[in-house]
């Protein structure tokens, strides 16, 4: 690979190699304040390669690859190289991680107490986490909550926050001083723009937190908050975990402990303000 970039995000480090300079330069700029991998050795390797050698010159598109692969991952146009890098990094972690139980969730923390927001794409995880960070919460991550099976604590994974469509404008208004990546229009996930986690998130990224609340937000419905039992939370979180099966008994122990100790609520909300009020209330 001609262009290489390495970064540590919480307890996880990546090395990204690319056939093109562009995506690596963007990553380097946006992750400028993140540390390098400890001892220079990355946990995961990601490759952004030209789908065909000649395609590097003619309508270039990016195929993502690494230690773990999805054979049918569609190539993305080079203009979306940053998105390809993000997807590839997520994929390596999602499929390869064995130290932590991974929950597809955003996490924010205040006074050592973490709130976990989980739900399908479009539920508002990233948006709510970014908006809460504008209100003094520490952003631990918008994509993966890393649950330590030994301690029951959550570890931060403050990667670039991936904002989609209308969320881009909402978060820009709430965080006018924040740094954002380039707007990538018309990706398979819609219009995407990345938010750089703030200095608080980066300074504290090695500090784990105790989960105290699990929220299943759902955007586009009238205000409603209903408690979710431990059994239902367990089922939903096995679906929201990318490595529950791979962790075996350790995953079972970690997740049963989590749902027994952490009260859960299903939160329907019509707009971000009401969700924030419900989460902070």
């Amino acid at each position, binding site marked *: 690979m001609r262009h290489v970039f390495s970064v540590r995000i919480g307890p996880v480090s990546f090395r990204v190699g690319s056939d093109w300079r562009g995506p690596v330069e963007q990553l380097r700029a946006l992750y400028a304040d993140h540390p390098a991998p400890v001892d220079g050795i990355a946990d995961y390797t990601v490759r952004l390669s030209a789908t065909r050698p000649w395609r590097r010159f003619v309508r270039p598109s990016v195929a993502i690859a690494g230690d773990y692969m999805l054979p049918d991952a569609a190539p993305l146009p080079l203009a979306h190289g940053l998105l390809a890098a993000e997807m590839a990094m997520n994929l390596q972690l999602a499929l390869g991680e064995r130290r932590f139980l991974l929950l597809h969730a955003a996490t924010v923390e205040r006074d050592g107490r973490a709130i976990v927001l989980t739900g399908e794409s479009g539920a508002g995880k990233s948006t709510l986490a970014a908006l809460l960070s504008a209100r003094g919460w520490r952003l631990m991550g918008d994509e993966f909550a890393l649950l330590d099976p030994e301690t029951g604590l959550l570890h931060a994974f403050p990667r670039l926050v991936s904002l989609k469509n209308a969320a881009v404008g909402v978060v820009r208004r709430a965080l006018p001083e924040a740094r954002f990546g380039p707007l990538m229009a018309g990706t398979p996930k819609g219009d995407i723009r990345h938010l750089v986690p703030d200095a608080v998130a980066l300074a504290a990224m090695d500090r784990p937190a105790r989960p105290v609340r699990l929220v299943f937000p759902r955007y586009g419905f009238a205000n409603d908050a209903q408690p979710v039992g431990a059994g239902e939370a367990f089922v939903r979180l096995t679906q929201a975990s990318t490595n529950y099966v791979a962790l075996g*008994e350790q995953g*079972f122990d970690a997740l*049963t402990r989590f749902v027994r100790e952490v009260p859960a609520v299903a939160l329907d909300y019509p707009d971000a303000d009401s969700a924030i009020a419900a989460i902070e209330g």
Partner: protein
Amino acid sequence: MAETRYRAPARDGLRIAALDDLIAVYHRASGITHLVVAPVPELLEAMAGEWRSLESLAEAFGLAAGERGALIERLDELVAAGLVEAA
């Protein structure tokens, strides 16, 4: 014809965690998590590591001769799920 007998894994072959209304059962041999409700944990306990006949299970749960249909259904489900052996 010999009567069908059933056996669940020994106690240390399962991890069982009550989660409100559901009970999560982790089967160590297969690595599969099962979500069950009563009386499955009680059934598993009654034949943990031990072959039991339908007769003796029905007796243990106080079922009369006409009430065994549901027990057979539960046992068949557990056999299909791989949590219980039948012989």
